[in-house]
């Protein structure tokens, strides 16, 4: 190892850093690196396949003799399975296999815990016959008491969902409640508020599902997944197969948002059906199953207290939160740590509450949109209480130089000084009133070890990158092409990308915004290694040292000798073998500029005070993600986050019938997601930050942009109409009710 110096940061704040990378690593890109392809606008390499329909998603895989699987699910929120009679179903035409989702010997005592809980699966020769066969299974249920509502589940006499004496599972609180309360009491201004957020389902366009085909003594699997390798490992351990007996392919995936790791219950059932029938089985979930059974963002009930001194400096933060992830946990809200106070000034207590509903799953920045909705509205409340501009108040309390620069950029872009200075005091166009709001965000996606990559250069100049991880719609495949093109002096379209197959080098699951930051350094290093092999071959031909050779603008050349220059393809003819392969492992991160990423969003809304309809007119989203690999995809990733965040703010809501224990809008007719007409003008600004933690310096971008949107919109609504909405989604009836309360308070 040799110590090297790199400059990290961004135009507004930079520093020099000593690093000790392994000698085999490519020279690290830093703030001063001049890159040709990285950071430019590169259209997706698989875009044409997607828009022309050539792309084959798991849904599109059809094999000869393929059967169709369908799952029978509990119609009850809680029930004991007394008996199961499958005789009639098995006699139906075309039915080939049936497997239970639980140990059959448990029939008589097996407890189903939510409407949608899996009972068994059937494979038949058409989807319709599988549906009919599922309907023909006769089950005797003994319905049990249940609870689906957060507040009801916290009551002492609530039916117990899992086990123990209570449905509430508190984690150890952080901080000293009494000390924080004392600080609050001594603060010159303080606010206290209770916030609620709803359950949101992932609602990826492509539902969960797989096609599993017996393949020799193993299986071949096409899966709609965020984790090619986690599906492989999950299925192989479940079935007692070796990892190499399971091949998983996920060439195209129609979104995941956090709910598609591992094979899932449906994956295990599909595989068992395929092995029982000894035929390929396709099992794709319906939209209804998707809403009920494969994950959601937990709801929340958050009690927040904030205090500030007379100069506007925060003095204390206290947050006590509850949330239900249904029969599962993971409902923490975390109150993300944008504003860092000392330990004795911060108190955070989180509890999971179990209910008889489908289990939560990680969803795009778990806990964060909930926590930021509460925290960033609380900040706004305190700013108004202090008589400070909400942006100025944040600047007073935010010591992150990146976010401070972003606040300034965003404020300029949205025209922050044009907002109403008094909440509700803006000029009205009939019943329509406008306002602006802001909220900050943060994320932690630096990636880490655990990725490999191969880059192959052929004698004819063909370049191929192999990486097993999946592209769930983020543009990951394009990232691979860009990195290799940069290192070899080529264009992204010159690179063939082979990804999303468990036979290729190991890659991570796409979670925590880590796919690009984890994989990019390995791909960069593999391209560098392949390039070194090409240079070594040329060095012999040209009688120079490999270090004298460069690759740029499609040429391979010796800078000091203009006679030694060849187009890339011709240069590759110097290879003695048919091809050379550069292979690399991801090195651990070293110290960098920052361990987290920052962002903020500004929203401008127009509220119809007669109907309560909120239109979001504009959102300015400023985000850092370390070094930007593809500006175009980064901006669209941010737009996607804003749209999903807006949809969470105004529309999406899993509605449970408390007395029936069932979801009443398990479809897209009544579970509304923002449509094109609901989308605002979105200005995405990526702030390129040379983060320096590895040779590439990229950070993740998948999650951060969804976090602050709802809070920014809520703050904009307050600015527009002088009424704060404490509960998501901010539907017209809540706005009208809040306005009526304000009117009532005025006249009373």
């Amino acid at each position, binding site marked *: 190892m040799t110590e090297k110096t790199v400059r990290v940061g961004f135009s507004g704040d930079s520093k020099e850093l000593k690093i000790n990378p392994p000698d085999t690593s490519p020279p690290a890109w830093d703030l001063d690196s001049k890159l040709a392809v990285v950071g430019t606008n590169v259209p997706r390499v698989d875009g044409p396949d997607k828009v022309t329909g050539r792309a084959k998603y798991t849904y599109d895989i059809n094999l000869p003799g393929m059967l169709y699987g369908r799952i029978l699910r509990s119609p009850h929120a809680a029930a004991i399975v007394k008996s199961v009679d499958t005789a009639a179903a098995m006699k139906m035409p075309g039915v080939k296999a049936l497997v239970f989702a639980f140990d059959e010997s448990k029939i008589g005592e097996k407890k189903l815990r939510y409407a949608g809980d899996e009972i068994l699966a059937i494979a038949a020769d*058409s*989807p*319709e*016959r599988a*549906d*009919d066969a*599922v*309907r023909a299974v006769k089950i005797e249920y003994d319905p049990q008491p249940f609870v689906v509502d957060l507040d009801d589940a916290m009551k002492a006499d609530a039916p117990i969902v899992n086990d123990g004496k209570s449905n509430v599972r508190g984690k150890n609180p952080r901080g000293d409640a009494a000390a924080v309360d004392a600080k609050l009491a001594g603060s010159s201004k303080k606010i206290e508020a209770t916030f609620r957020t709803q359950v949101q389902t992932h609602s990826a366009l492509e539902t969960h599902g797989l096609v599993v085909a017996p393949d020799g003594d193993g299986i071949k699997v096409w899966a709609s997944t965020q984790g090619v390798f986690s599906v492989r490992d999950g299925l192989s351990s479940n079935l007692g197969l070796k990892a190499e007996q399971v091949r998983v392919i996920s060439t195209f995936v129609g979104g995941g948002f956090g709910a598609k790791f591992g094979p899932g219950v449906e994956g295990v059932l599909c595989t068992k059906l395929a092995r029982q029938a000894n035929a390929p089985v396709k099992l794709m979930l*319906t939209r*209804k199953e998707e809403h009920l059974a494969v994950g959601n963002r937990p709801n929340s009930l958050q009690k927040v207290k904030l205090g500030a001194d007379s100069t506007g400096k925060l003095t204390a933060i206290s947050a006590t939160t509850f949330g239900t992830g249904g029969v599962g946990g993971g409902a923490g809200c975390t109150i993300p740590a944008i504003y860092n106070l000392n330990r004795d000034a911060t108190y955070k207590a989180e509890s999971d509450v179990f209910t008889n509903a489908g289990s939560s799953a990680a969803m795009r920045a778990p806990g964060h949109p909930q926590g930021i909705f509460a925290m960033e509205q609380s900040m706004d409340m305190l700013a108004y209480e202090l008589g400070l501009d909400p942006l100025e108040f944040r600047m007073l309390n935010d010591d992150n130089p990146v976010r401070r620069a972003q606040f300034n950029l965003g404020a300029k872009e949205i025209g922050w000084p044009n907002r109403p200075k008094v909440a509700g005091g803006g000029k009205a166009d009939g*019943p329509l009133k406008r306002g602006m709001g802001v909220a900050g965000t943060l994320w932690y996606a630096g990636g880490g070890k655990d990725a490999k990559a191969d880059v192959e250069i052929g004698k004819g100049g063909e370049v191929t990158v192999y990486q097993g991880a999946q592209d769930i719609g983020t543009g990951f495949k394009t990232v691979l092409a860009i990195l290799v093109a940069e290192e070899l002096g080529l264009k992204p379209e010159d690179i063939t990308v082979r990804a999303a197959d468990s036979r290729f080098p190991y890659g991570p699951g796409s979670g925590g915004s880590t796919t690009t930051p984890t994989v990019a350094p390995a791909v960069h290093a593999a391209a560098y290694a392949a390039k070194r092999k090409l240079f070594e071959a040329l060095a012999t031909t040209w009688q120079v040292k490999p270090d004298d050779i460069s690759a740029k603008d499609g040429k391979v050349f010796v800078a000091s000798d203009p006679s030694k220059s060849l187009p890339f393809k011709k240069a590759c003819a110097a290879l003695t073998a048919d091809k050379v392969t550069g292979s690399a492992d991801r090195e651990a991160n070293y110290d960098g500029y920052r361990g987290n990423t920052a962002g903020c969003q500004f929203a401008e809304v127009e509220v119809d005070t*007669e*109907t*309560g*309809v909120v239109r979001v007119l504009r959102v300015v989203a400023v985000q850092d993600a370390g070094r930007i690999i593809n500006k175009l995809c980064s901006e669209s990733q941010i737009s996607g986050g804003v749209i999903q965040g807006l949809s969470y703010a*105004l*529309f999406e809501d899993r*509605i449970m019938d408390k007395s029936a224990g069932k979801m*009443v*809008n398990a*479809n897209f*007719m*009544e579970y*509304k997601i*923002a*449509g*094109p*007409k*609901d989308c605002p003008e979105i200005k995405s600004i990526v702030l390129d930050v040379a983060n320096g933690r590895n040779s590439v310096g990229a950070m993740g971008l998948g999650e951060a942009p969804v976090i602050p949107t709802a809070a920014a919109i809520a703050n904009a609504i307050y600015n527009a109409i002088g009424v704060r909405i404490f509960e998501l989604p901010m*539907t*017209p*009836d809540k706005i*009208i*009710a809040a306005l*009526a309360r304000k009117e009532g308070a005025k006249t009373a």
Partner: protein
Amino acid sequence: MRTNLADYECLTPGSVREALEQRATGRKLIPIAGGTDVMVWMNDGHLGKVGKVYQSLHALAGEWRYVKTDTEGNLRIGALATYSDVRHHEDVKKNYPMLVHSAQVTGAIQIQNRGTLAGNIANGSPAADTVPALMVYDAKLRLVNASGERVVELSEFFTGYRANVLKEEELISEIILPKPRFAADQQYYRKVGTREAQAISKVVFAGANDGKGNVRMAWGSVAPITLRSKKTEDAVAAGAAADDAWAILQTEITPIDDIRSTRDYRLKVSQRILADFLGKVHQ
């Protein structure tokens, strides 16, 4: 949940006459026009196959898919005319702007290309978007059976939630709109939905005033049926102020809490739409 369509019994008459003869046999036949409601109900599992027989009206398009103005100046909309047929028709665009508007905000383009106005009426959803507009235009329905026909007022067609005066042996053959009589700026249509497009209404309203004592106001999503608020109409025609009109309207509408909104919300929004309407038309 899907099912094997081949297991369903579906009659496919080739002509209006054959369709009506099939209905005259006393069997309960569920008509399928565009199918945009039937298929949703079927997919949701609300329509079983046991004992249900469907009747596809697809082949009747030659006879029943039309939009035209007759010699007396009435607009006639055949039972198989789609939302798209209606919203793009020149006579409709010229004379019945609320019908164009209401067809535009119904579902998506795909729904508009398949769905029919007659089907929207027969389905009987109180949230139907075109029905308030049709009612304000004093639409009549021609109901036919194998031996004859009758004409009923649309405003008297619905008898309760998804219930109407149509008999088993009858089909709606056409919608008749009398000659236009409202000035363009005296017509008011408003849909308040969950989102900007492809959403079922929380409140939907159509209203018009001819300035000669004829006021029409029809409401959707605020009662078990789409209804004309005739008492409120009379009061407004007699010069009632907004507050008085609202007091009367509250005796005519009966909104509920449901999956899309609340009773309180629907009442408040109805009150404001009423006030807005009265402010924009002649008094």
